[in-house]
């Protein structure tokens, strides 16, 4: 698929003239440029399709009410305004929601990465009867939809207890619904959002590391855990970056578990699913704007768009900083078996 190598180093002038005369040369050149053109159009088109909703949201969020009803305004607002942002900022209690989400996502990311890197290493290195069966269990956790185990999990965390210990001390099992504990516990025990996939990535990666490296470390007198910490982990950094980014982002966006475990919208994803309602209550209760605003579906939709933009904005900013490293690390992370 390397068409661009057709033109090598500049040939001597006579050769060049000869080549200009041959049809094969022109055929090759046309083929090359046609492919470049097609490729450009395809990439540009798909990039546009991907960016379109984001651009649209940016455009909407800067619009004012008068622009909404102006049929000549489509993309560029006539009067730029930051009012939408201010309103969403206060109505959604943005700073505290942002801090909650950052805190939760980072904590889950760290716990998940630690558990999964350990499990992945274990699965790559243990060999005994039944180890294949254990790894099949990892695949099984990926395949079973979370809806299937949703109700027992919910009831588990609603009446949380470890072998009757909590009941012994407190008199009743703890209710962990509406706290962050369900997320932290499932992350630490490797059963959070898409955790099976992370174990799989790490296991594939560690299988690619030659055993001789570890054996050399043993010969030099390093213990098992020391070898893991000093030799194996530093090598695993590319795949760890991949998993950390995935787990941060997927926790940030996860609406399934957040809506299930949290009654109040404390984090971004549950905030987004109820942003319309929150803003409407704020507007009618706060008394800052006329109640007629909340009746206006256009206005509410504008608010929703602004709030979604504000919810994904931190992710996009983080992505801008890490994307180069991210793509490179995936290529070297052993995501490929």
């Amino acid at each position, binding site marked *: 698929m390397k068409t661009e190598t057709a033109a090598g180093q500049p040939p001597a002038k006579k050769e060049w003239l000869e080549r200009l005369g041959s049809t094969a040369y022109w055929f090759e050149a046309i083929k090359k440029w046609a492919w470049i053109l097609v490729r450009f159009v395809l990439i540009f088109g798909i990039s546009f399709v991907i960016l379109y909703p984001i651009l649209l949201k940016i455009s909407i969020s800067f619009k004012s009410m008068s622009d909404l009803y102006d049929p000549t305004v489509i993309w560029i607002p006539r009067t730029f305004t930051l009012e939408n942002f201010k309103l969403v900022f206060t109505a959604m209690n943005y700073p505290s929601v942002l801090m909650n989400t950052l805190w939760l996502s980072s904590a889950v990311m760290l716990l998940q990465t630690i558990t999964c890197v350990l499990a992945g290493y274990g699965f790559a290195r243990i060999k005994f009867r039944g180890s294949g069966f254990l790894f099949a269990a990892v695949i099984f956790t990926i395949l079973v939809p979370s809806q299937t185990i949703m109700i*027992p999990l919910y009831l588990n965390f609603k009446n949380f207890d470890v072998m009757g210990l909590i009941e012994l001390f407190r008199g009743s099992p703890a209710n962990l619904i509406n706290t962050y504990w369900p997320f932290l516990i499932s992350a630490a025990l490797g059963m959070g959002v898409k955790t099976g996939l992370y174990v799989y990535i790490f296991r594939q990666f560690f299988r690619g590391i030659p055993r001789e490296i570890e054996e050399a470390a043993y010969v030099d007198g390093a213990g098992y855990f020391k070898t893991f910490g000093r030799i194996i982990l530093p090598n695993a950094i590319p795949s760890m970056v991949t998993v950390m980014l995935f787990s941060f982002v997927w926790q940030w966006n996860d609406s399934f578990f957040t809506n299930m475990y949290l009654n109040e919208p404390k984090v971004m994803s549950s905030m987004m699913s109820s942003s319309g309602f929150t803003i409407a209550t704020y507007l009618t209760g706060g008394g800052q704007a006329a109640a007629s605003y909340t009746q206006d579906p256009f206005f509410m*939709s504008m608010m929703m*768009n602004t709030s979604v933009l504000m919810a994904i904005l931190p992710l996009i900013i983080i992505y801008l900083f890490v994307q180069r490293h991210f793509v490179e690390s995936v290529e070297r992370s052993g995501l490929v078996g």
Partner: protein
Amino acid sequence: MKLKKLSLEQKNRYYGLYFILPWFIGFLLLFMVPLISSFRYSLSNLQVSNEGFTLEYIGLANFREALFSHESYVRMLTESVINIVVNTPLIIIFSLFFAVILNQKFHGRVLARAIFFLPVILASGIIASIENGDLMQSVVRSANDMTGGGLSVMKNLDLTIMLLESGMSPIIVEYLTGAVSRIYEIVSQSGVQILIFLAGLQSISPSLYEAAKIEGSTGYEAFWKITFPMLSPLILTNLVYTIVDSFISDQTSRLVVDTAFKSFNFGLSAAMSWMYFGVIALILWVTTALVSRKVFYQN
């Protein structure tokens, strides 16, 4: 110490077990136990109260209710299955194609990759669901259509007529034009798949292509004889990933959640999710059985 007497190999085994221990506890307590109790719930009438919950065995009544008397379950289930069957091949072909393109050298490749992986960051059921029911977006979209800008480049109607007149089968035409109008859905679901394919492309040794070039193969031949077989294990991986990924955010799973937490019919919801899982497992089994026969492994 007892461990001292074991050989290195044997030691490895036991230490390996320590490494997987946290995961294993989680697997037992947060996966196996809930899975079994979920199955029990699907066979019973579950009443939740403040003190806890009570179970009353009612046999297959929940399954019967979901299949025969629920107003929308069967319809949504069929729609979900059709969606998966239709979208999965499109996503695989699309992501393979663009992975190959993004793997070539051209100006702005870094930027193009950054944009193509944005869906991985933004892919989330909730954003998509807000998008669908959104008034402003549809207003701007229709304004765009009127002025001829934006996404109306894909004028499906003319294309359909043209293809039909050129003698293509209506089913294929419908599939292709449907793919064009669902392009955003497909693009936003193929971020991870592109990433996996791209990583696979990077791991193919360039010497294979050099050898093929010396033997006089064209880019087209090189793709089908080298790239495609070398990537075939990843096609299987991506197939499984796509199918699994698609049931996280689709309407049947939303119905399952709503049945549990809006109408508080936990038993029915468990029955629904078990049948859903059964259907998905069947699809996965059939696809892996069909595809893995064609997969080429290097070793």
